[in-house]
């Protein structure tokens, strides 16, 4: 991989509680955190990092709504208008028998649409090789990456702040 000249300082944390306090402490000192990589979801991490709540539930609702509309339109049009058929002397268009298919398509579109949105907004695809700041970040270490170009403080100063806030190791990583 060709070098992009980006320089990062990587703080390694051994425990999720130390990490949560560490993130708060580092941010209090005015250091901008690029991102934190954890092996499992750490509750409260998004709050201390100041992330806004995900809007994926809205996407799920809209896709679900699309599924409901699609299913009802399809069934009413097909059996009511395009080719009406007498089945057991029942009405061409009656809502109760259309409910199961409507429900299933609502769930299907909502789930698939939301997951597709998740992959797109998170830039996840099978042919992507993610940047790894430390290979242990999927095993047992929590990794805090700090972009040196985005911070005014020097490398040494940030390193000291990381150590003071519970980092067990501080490494440099260049891309």
């Amino acid at each position: 991989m060709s070098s992009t000249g980006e320089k990062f300082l990587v703080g390694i944390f051994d425990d999720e509680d130390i990490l949560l306090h560490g993130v708060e402490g580092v941010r209090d000192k005015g250091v901008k955190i690029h991102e934190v990589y954890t092996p499992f979801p750490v509750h409260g991490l998004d709050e201390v990092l100041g992330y806004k709540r995900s809007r994926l539930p809205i996407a799920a609702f809209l896709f679900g709504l699309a599924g409901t509309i699609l299913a009802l339109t399809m069934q009413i049009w097909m059996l009511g208008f395009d080719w009406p058929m007498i089945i057991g002397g029942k009405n061409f268009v009656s809502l109760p028998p259309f409910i199961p298919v409507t429900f299933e398509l609502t769930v299907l579109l909502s789930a698939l649409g939301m997951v597709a949105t998740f992959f797109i907004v998170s830039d996840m695809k099978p042919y992507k090789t993610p940047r790894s700041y430390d290979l242990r970040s999927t095993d047992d270490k929590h990794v805090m990456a700090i972009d040196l170009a985005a911070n005014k403080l020097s490398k040494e100063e940030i390193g000291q702040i990381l150590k003071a806030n519970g980092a067990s190791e501080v490494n440099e990583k260049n891309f």
Partner: protein
Amino acid sequence: MQATSSVRESLITGGKTVRDVSEDISRHVENKPNRLWWIAFSFSLLLLGFGFYCLSALLWEGIGLWGLNKTVGWAWDITNFVWWVGIGHAGTLISAILLLFRQKWRMSINRAAEAMTIFAVICAATFPLAHMGRLWIGPIWSLPLPNTFGSLWVNFNSPLLWDVFAISTYFTVSLVFWYIGLIPDFAVIRDRATRMGSKTRAAIYNALSFGWDGAAKTWMRYESVALILAGLSTPLVLSVHTIVSFDFATSVVPGWHTTIFPPYFVAGAIFSGFAMVLTLLIVTRKVFKLEDYITIYHIELMNIVIIITGSIVGIAYITEFFVAWYGMVPAEFYAFYNRATGPYWWAYWSMMTCNVISPQLFWFKKIRTNIVATFVLSIIVNIGMWFERFVIIVTSIHRDYLPSSWSMFYPTLYDVGEYVFTFGLFFTAFFLFAKFFPVINMAEVKSIIKSSSEKKH
């Protein structure tokens, strides 16, 4: 700060650390499979091969090879379909409903249970597909696609069509839910492979992990996706067997035409699904030495679910019988009287023994915490659940309205063969899953290590 309750038993034993979780679970993917795995896998391939022969013959000659006749037009095919769909209910129930209820014990078992769900639904689908005869056009005609007859659309008033939508949606959503859960764990194996210098494995698992990086932002979105998928899957799980029961309940056949079917089928599905999860996990924890992750406590909790759902099923059987008598419809009462005392009495009483009496043994703590007893009873429950479907389906139709049409059903080699085919398919798929995929959700288990492990911090 983590609060640890002293009342609850620990979910992860052996003083495991976060690192041990990666090691213990990934090891099976990285190492060559042991001899036991090869024996089990070869045996499943053998079943699959024999079943494949029977299925091919069936597709070549037509479904006349089955033992169906004019009176009994549905027998093993639909029995096996309902049985497999029922088994496929536990996985998503464990991962979705137990997630919404914040039951942490689901975390060690949800991965394998969901895999089982997906394979069971595939097995179920083979029966209606084969029953349609012409496999190359049947599935197309069951979808609302434009065709050269008009377009003559599918009948949206038919519960059989609702089934097509319910099963395919259930399969797709369960698959997506399962896969979403697998993504961070594939990344664990990828990063371990990179550290071990195995480039091919790293590339394969990177593609499987969709380039997962474990960023806090991705985790935040990921948790949101998992929660909504759980919310969507919860009514979905309940809808699937409800709609399967509509196949019978909306007909006017005595013995089928009952409003109790949807809840009774759903309870039965969870009952048989948990039994199958137990059968598989007791073997898996032994073969892969996962006793610290799937503990006796997990087994006990699953057995409690079996007592509850088994008792619901038992009450449903008795209610059905009572209503048939109390409703004073002679045809309806005869259908039930014939079930218990007619030529299929042995199937009825096998069902009653296996489903109503045997799960009650789990009231004894000694039995529900005993692995051998649980294993045996879990198989008995699924035998009982197979008989339940057979009893509902065949005994309701084998005594037609005219005594001259009365008949019996005798399975042929091809009825048995296709059932064997699905067993082969199910176990082959499960063993491949157990070898190549992490069988326990590492990310979730790691997140509870601190609060639920024996180790004191």
